[in-house]
């Protein structure tokens, strides 16, 4: 049986689609959004995370590291990322979990075992499983297998995607998917490139194709003030989504600053978000109103 690198499996997810769901976070993403709140999922490999506030100073990690990547003296405790290959030896011996490895190779059976635990809950709440990431669509072949197992059990299968993959990847699994949670970050190619590092043409084209096939779609728009909340962008999004036949809902997501600790634990820079203010409720409400005025079903998520 094949497998995939999984960042984490989150049970009892309430904001990843209908009902109560289990969300499986895959690793690896072709985009690199400046506000990503799951930065540990961007890399396709395992990655070391540090939480040195939990460190008890036992120094076991120093001995364990084969690359001498850890610096720990009186004043400093950090990892030289350029030397670290995330081998995980330190995490193995660090009992307080001050050093952990994100990313575990799992096969379908292992993932299903976790998913199955809440089967009654899916039935009660009309929930199911959401595959997210990272970009789950990078794992279409694996999802073919995993998705079949999910469908076989009668759980609904949602895919949370940013859409930046060749359409043939969607074709591999389309028949299994109940609903796509489809991100649109900006209608403007320049803004899109500024946010994600990539162009948006493929993304928009893919969602149009999915809609032409009649797939159930929930559009998700993360909004950051002064980045993608312009009237122009919203108008363009309204015009574009209006043309799509099978969009049932638009979720507007305010950008939060909740990922600071994660960025710190990866030694990554979060100043893009930290230096800005969190998206105000009134901004979100106004955008929702605009969609609603146009006869569309928009909500805050």
């Amino acid at each position, binding site marked *: 049986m094949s497998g995939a690198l999984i960042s984490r499996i989150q049970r009892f997810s309430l904001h990843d689609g209908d009902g109560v769901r289990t969300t499986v976070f895959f690793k690896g993403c072709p985009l690199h959004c400046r506000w990503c709140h799951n930065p540990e999922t961007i890399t396709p490999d395992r990655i070391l995370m540090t939480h040195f506030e939990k460190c008890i100073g036992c120094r076991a990690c120093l001995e364990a590291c084969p690359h001498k990547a850890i610096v720990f003296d009186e004043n400093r405790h950090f990892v030289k990322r350029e030397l670290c290959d995330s081998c995980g030896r330190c995490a193995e011996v660090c009992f*307080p979990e001050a050093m952990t490895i994100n990313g575990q190779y799992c096969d379908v059976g292992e993932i299903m075992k976790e998913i199955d635990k809440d089967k009654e*809950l899916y039935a009660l*709440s009309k929930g199911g499983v959401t595959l997210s990431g990272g970009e789950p669509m990078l794992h279409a072949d694996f999802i073919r297998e995993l998705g079949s197992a999910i469908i076989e059990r009668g759980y609904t299968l949602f895919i949370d995607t940013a859409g930046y993959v060749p359409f043939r990847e969607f074709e591999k699994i389309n028949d299994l998917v109940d609903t796509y949670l489809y991100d649109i970050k900006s209608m403007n190619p320049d803004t899109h490139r500024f946010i994600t590092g990539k162009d948006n043409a493929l993304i928009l084209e893919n969602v149009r194709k999915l809609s032409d096939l009649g797939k159930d779609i929930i559009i998700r728009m993360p909004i950051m003030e002064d980045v993608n909340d312009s009237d122009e962008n919203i108008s363009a999004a309204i015009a574009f989504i209006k043309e799509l036949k099978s969009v049932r809902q638009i979720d507007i997501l305010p950008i939060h600053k909740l990922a600071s600790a994660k960025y710190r634990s990866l030694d990554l820079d979060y100043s893009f978000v930290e230096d800005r203010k969190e998206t105000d409720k009134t901004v979100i409400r106004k955008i929702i109103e605009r969609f609603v005025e146009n006869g569309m079903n928009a909500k805050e998520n």
Partner: protein
Amino acid sequence: MKNHFREKKKQMFEEFDAFYSGYPADVSDILEKLDEEDRKEPDRTPYRLKAMQYRILSENCRVKVFRHCPFYFEIVSGIARGRLGAKLPLSESGFGSWIIERNRKINDPFVEFFKPYEEGYFLHSLSKFFDVTHIIPGYENVFAYGFNGLKNRVLDKLANESDPERLDFYKAMIQGLDAGMLVAEKFAAEADRMLKEENDPDVIRNLTRIRESALRCPKEAPRTFYEALNTYWFLHELLKIFDCLSIATIGHIDRELITYYRNDISKGILTRQEAEELIYYYLLITDGIFDYYEQGRDHLNANMALTIGGQNPDGSPVYNEITSIVLKAMSELKLVNPNVSVRVGSQDDPQYFKEIAEMIAGGCNNYSIINDDTAIPSLVRAGIPLEDARIYGTGGCQETVVPNKHHFMRAFMYINLPILFNMSLHGKTEDREYLEKLFPLAFFNEATNYEEVYRIFLKNFREYCLAVSAKFREYAPYAKIYNPLPLYSTTVDDCIDKGKDYTDSGARFYNASISLVGVGTLIDMLYTVKTEVFEKRNFTLKQLSDMAMNDFEGPGEERVRQYLLNRVKKYGNDEEELNRFAAKIFHDLAELSSGMDDGFGGRYVASLFSYNWYAKMGFHTEATLDGRKAGKAFSRSIGPSEYGKTIEISKAIHSISRIDSTEYPGITVLYLDMPYTRNRLNTQFYVDLLRYFMVNGGYVLQLNIVDRETLIAAREEPDKYRNLVVRVCGFSEYFVSLKPERQEEMINRNEASQ
């Protein structure tokens, strides 16, 4: 309703505050009269003594009628504000407690006996050998017969009685009923007096109704919804004071009053809005008469339980108009009290689920959800016939008990399981000596495998339960001498027919239970021994024991502690192996804490109700083998330990799926702190959550919905958060009135669940 009611509430609360600020009232004259009467005839039999007390109290007591409260109930007894009664010292509990002060030589040795164990936090008793808190008076019998009807039944029996003790008993019953009727007349007279000076038309209407009703009730059976509703409070207060009880129950309001409600509506003498208003007042009384803002005191004594939902004796659902009114009132009023026990079964109307969910989503924090699918079979297991089990109510926090005919001693003896494990492990000499006075303690020393350790622990546990229950049994015959309850007994099925008091096996069913504290922590300790000592052989028992005794403070021991904490699997993380391991322990503990004779013709049944003792006992227990440091709280009831780890809601609920909660008629509670911000969750989510809890066989569910930031802010700026109600364990409180260490514990707990 809410806005229109706000002004009325304010008026009533101001009146309460003004009056109760003068509490405790001086009742020394009445106490002297009691002493004097007692001196005149010091050899009265217990029932005669009680009858004398009824007479003196009823003749001499004063009553208070509030202008802005529709109900009459306040007997000026000398009780301090915020006390439920039935407690000493006399200066705080009023003249009702005169008898237990007089007879204290009976109870004192009992209290003395357990004192050293309590001081060591090995166990906790409520200092009483007969439970007078978690009891539900036979409200329905009073509704059916009125005091006069009950009196006639007693008179019939009296006419053919020759046994001297029973004669005394019946006469005391009559004296008690007469006393109650006299007190009601005093309310009528007081209302009448006030009417003469009153000009406010609203108040005049109110006082007139009180005067008319008090002339009739409880002498006669109530005829209207109002009279029945008032009878709850009247009876509650009357019994509390005249029989020296701390009854924590005020009825199963929707089941017991729906006929009155519908009759009144169809006769056109009551509108839905009037009924709503009466229920709002009714719910507000507990909040009003106690001072929940008094800083730094846990108001454990001021806990009142109200039951809604559930079933009728024939199994039909209760859910009705009154249920809906109460649920709506609960989310609108944001009360600390009463503690509403919401009974719900999987077969109940989906609309009922929806209304419960709306109440939860509305931010109400003073309720418990009780799953009928578990509760009813568990009571049947305790020996209660199905049709009686179906109408159970709850007393105090959420302890199930059958109204009118049951005495279920509960929440009066808690035992600390982690400390028992530690004693079996290392048996500190000074503690060991006095524990061995209670039962022969066996030690793990010699064990060569896990099964042996487990067997030794269970043996100690069983001996412990036997010893504790034997002590209670030894005292059982004294209950009717210490504080007999003839008045209360008139309301209880069978007491009149049998000519036996409630304290003398007069009721139809008796049960008792010992509450087990820290089971989740114990499971983790046992699992550590099984895997680390005997399977992986990473440590010897002695090594672990020494480190724990040392609070893991020795060189290198913190690393071991972190290992135990994070690398040994824990209950609550929903791994099948551990779920089964835990289920077996739950099963064995249930079996071994059950079956003992309670001294009243009933049997002990198992209970996991841990009240606030999971914290208090934890605060005073040394380190444990699961990696918990000394002085930290234990797990709560059926739940996993929350020490230093993340509790995921789904995992916590699913972890109990293998446990058969019907083996615990004394209830199991799953407490979940919901760290979500309210406005982001729809009501459907709570419906799903409830159903999921039921599917997994849960018994009682308690949610605490408040986010950590709010708690921290409330601690910093209490004035801004005066109305923040939080669920502490069995009861709710204003967060700002909690003691600092409990505030701290709640914040940490909330953090663990994020």
